[in-house]
């Protein structure tokens, strides 16, 4: 049987620890390793931090819906849905610079690099005024 977590966060960075609690709870139920829990948490944190920080310009309270699904076939899928301004992190986020001297490294761009590196699939669509990101990670036994 698949394990699921569905929850809603408001657009405030103080919600990020709640995200961690949800991912940790799912990880415990699904016997994920600490490394897997960390990586899933990191990817979702980066995407949600982005939405909370830059997605809204009206100063109003908004809600972001999150659905996590852990399949018995060792695969995690996550769907994030927000009503912020249209933003496709795959195309619009800055690219990280991973080489060169300290002075040449820009401060930023690492978040989406983690998403690309740590997830096996990322899909974006804009539907009914919402950004919908679908992510998947294969959880190979460690």
């Amino acid at each position, binding site marked *: 049987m698949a394990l699921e977590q569905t929850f809603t966060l408001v657009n405030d960075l103080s919600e*990020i620890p709640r995200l961690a609690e949800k991912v940790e709870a799912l990880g415990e139920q699904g016997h994920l390793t600490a490394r897997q829990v960390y990586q899933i948490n*990191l990817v979702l944190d980066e995407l949600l931090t982005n939405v909370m920080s830059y997605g809204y310009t009206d100063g109003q309270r908004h809600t972001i819906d999150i659905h996590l699904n852990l399949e018995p076939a060792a695969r995690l899928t996550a769907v994030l849905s927000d009503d912020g301004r249209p933003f496709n992190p795959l195309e619009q986020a800055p690219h990280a610079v991973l080489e060169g001297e300290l002075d040449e490294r820009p401060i930023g761009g690492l978040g989406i690099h983690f998403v690309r590196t740590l997830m096996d699939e990322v899909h974006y669509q804009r539907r009914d005024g919402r950004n919908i990101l679908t992510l998947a990670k294969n959880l190979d036994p460690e």
Partner: protein
Amino acid sequence: MEVTETQVDGTLVIAPRGRLDSNTAPEFEQRLLQSLTGKPRLVLDLAGLDYISSAGLRVLLMAAKKVKQGQGRLALCELQAPIREIFEISGFLSILDVRATRAEALAELAA
């Protein structure tokens, strides 16, 4: 997040505990900036750090740049395994001085 500071033979050891994420990074940045004046000699002991995101890495990068500008020294140590892996993915291991233990980091800076 909790932060402890210890002076060891002229080197300041700063040890953050808990989570360094978008929620806690601004506070840690302010704390760190206070210690980066003059010609700082600083060890960041990350033994108690359970989690870091790009917001936290951004603060570490900022600190490293400031230390370099001030011709100071900075070493990091005691990284937990998942955090070390994130440093690796970020390309941080080639620009930051990362040591296994606090003793090694202190010895490096005293040299």
